[in-house]
């Protein structure tokens, strides 16, 4: 036999030519066997390998358990095997790190395959996330995207997904309505100051005459017997009369009854009663009260608050910055910020009693 008789198109004993011969006659020709032997190739071994390949390829499924030896035997490129595995493995193949390592599957490919079909909230364990090098960020976004306003995320989950507490707090509070029933523990976790938010919410909806229990009076620092006691102005003759304007809250307020004392001409004898009113106002006001109505508070967003500065100077140890506010917001007040360079914080407890110079 000549080479031309047995090898197609006069080709040499190339890989393709041998494969074709194998497919045709299984390397039955003595000449071919001799030619292979001349090149150091055992035709029987080659034939056996070819049969094994055929046997393996025929029942090949989308996810064969291929070990590296099989790849070597089949002379398959690992990329192809990887593609074959993924094509038929579905959107969330349960590939262990060992399998991925065996098929040289890149984590990226697996990651994408996992995420594409895994829906909005894949139940991926931390271990899987780590194996596939899945960024925690994506998992967090996926979890939060459809979790609604108040996802019931446990502390562990929050920690795992590195969810900022702020997110959770905002989500919880956004739709929690006027009086969310948040436990002290939840408030603490959310860093929500119950002293402000809840108290304001509770009081704002409490109406003008809330039924305050003794315990609440205690919390507010009020004595129940003192609060509703009206002050009766006294006008004994020869007493010095000092005009005193009690603060008035025009809008209905939960503490209106506290302020419902008319302006009185207050004789010295009634100073104690006036003192009681003032003490009560001083106690209530910092507790979120509205001793100043909106009108009494000077700032109004309905007027132009931008000022014109003709001259401005500061001490040598201070720098003045002028912040004109938002150009699109006429209500934004100009801020003159004094940056005091020298330490001027040697502060004493200020009396602030309104001393007029």
């Amino acid at each position, binding site marked *: 036999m000549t080479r031309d008789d047995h090898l197609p198109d006069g080709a040499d004993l190339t890989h393709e030519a041998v494969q074709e011969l194998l497919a045709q006659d299984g390397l039955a020709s003595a000449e071919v066997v001799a030619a292979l032997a001349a090149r150091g190739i055992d035709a029987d071994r080659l034939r056996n390998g070819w049969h094994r390949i055929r046997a393996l390829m025929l029942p090949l499924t989308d996810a064969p358990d291929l070990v590296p030896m099989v790849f070597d035997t089949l002379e398959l490129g690992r990329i192809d095997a990887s593609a074959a595995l993924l094509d038929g493995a579905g959107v969330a193949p349960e590939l262990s790190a060992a399998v991925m390592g065996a098929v040289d599957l890149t984590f990226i490919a697996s990651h994408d395959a996992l995420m594409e079909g895994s829906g909005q909230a894949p139940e991926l364990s931390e271990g899987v996330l780590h194996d596939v090098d899945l960024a925690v960020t994506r998992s967090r976004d996926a979890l939060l995207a459809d979790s609604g306003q108040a996802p019931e995320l446990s502390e562990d989950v929050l920690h795992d997904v590195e969810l900022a507490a702020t997110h959770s707090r905002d989500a919880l509070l956004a739709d929690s309505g006027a009086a969310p029933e948040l436990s002290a523990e939840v408030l603490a976790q959310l860093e929500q100051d119950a002293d402000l938010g809840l108290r304001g919410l509770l009081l704002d909806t409490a109406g003008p005459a809330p039924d305050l229990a003794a315990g609440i009076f205690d919390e507010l620092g009020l004595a129940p017997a003192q609060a509703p006691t009206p002050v009766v102005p006294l006008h004994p003759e020869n007493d010095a009369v000092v005009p005193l304007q009690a603060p008035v809250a025009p809008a209905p307020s939960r503490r209106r009854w506290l302020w419902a004392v008319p302006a009185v001409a207050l004789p010295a004898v009634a100073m104690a009663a006036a003192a009681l009113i003032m003490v009560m106002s001083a106690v209530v006001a910092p507790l*979120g009260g509205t001793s100043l109505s909106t009108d009494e508070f*000077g700032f109004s967003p309905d007027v*132009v608050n931008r000022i014109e500065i003709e001259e401005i100077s500061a001490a040598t140890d201070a720098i003045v910055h002028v912040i004109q506010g938002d150009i699109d917001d006429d209500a934004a007040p100009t801020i003159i910020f004094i940056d005091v360079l020298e330490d001027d914080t040697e*502060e004493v407890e200020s009396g602030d009693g*309104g001393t007029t110079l």
Partner: protein
Amino acid sequence: MNRRTLHVALAALLVGATPALPDVAHATPPAQQSPKGKVELKVHVIHATDAHSRVDPRLDKLQRYLRHLRYTGYELLETRKVPLTARGAESFTIAGERKVRVELLSKDAKKARMRVKIIGRKGQKLLDTTLSVPRNGTFIVAGPKYKGGILVLPLTAKY
């Protein structure tokens, strides 16, 4: 001394000092206090701090602008109504022993021109500015340090 106790003490002090206090401390009804030609300067003294995250609800409308100062908590310490006339300047002391001196220079239907001085605890002139504020407009002076934070003074020229 906690804040509540402090306020009680301050209120008691305020009442005790009532006969000696002028209009600055005790506002009379606007009709009597702000005759024609006067400007009532409303001065709010706010303590901005990072020590807490409470914002006084009375500062609700102003809160969005206070954010520029980047503090977490804002507490309204006091409010003053200072009647300004062309006769002279008005001075008063605010928290941290700072003094504020305001002088009405002129006004028309649209704006009031005034001079504002802030004097530090050591007598140094922290700020001296002449400016025009729109009628009923508000501007803010901020920066003097106070109890780990700063003082913020929104000033409104009402007339």
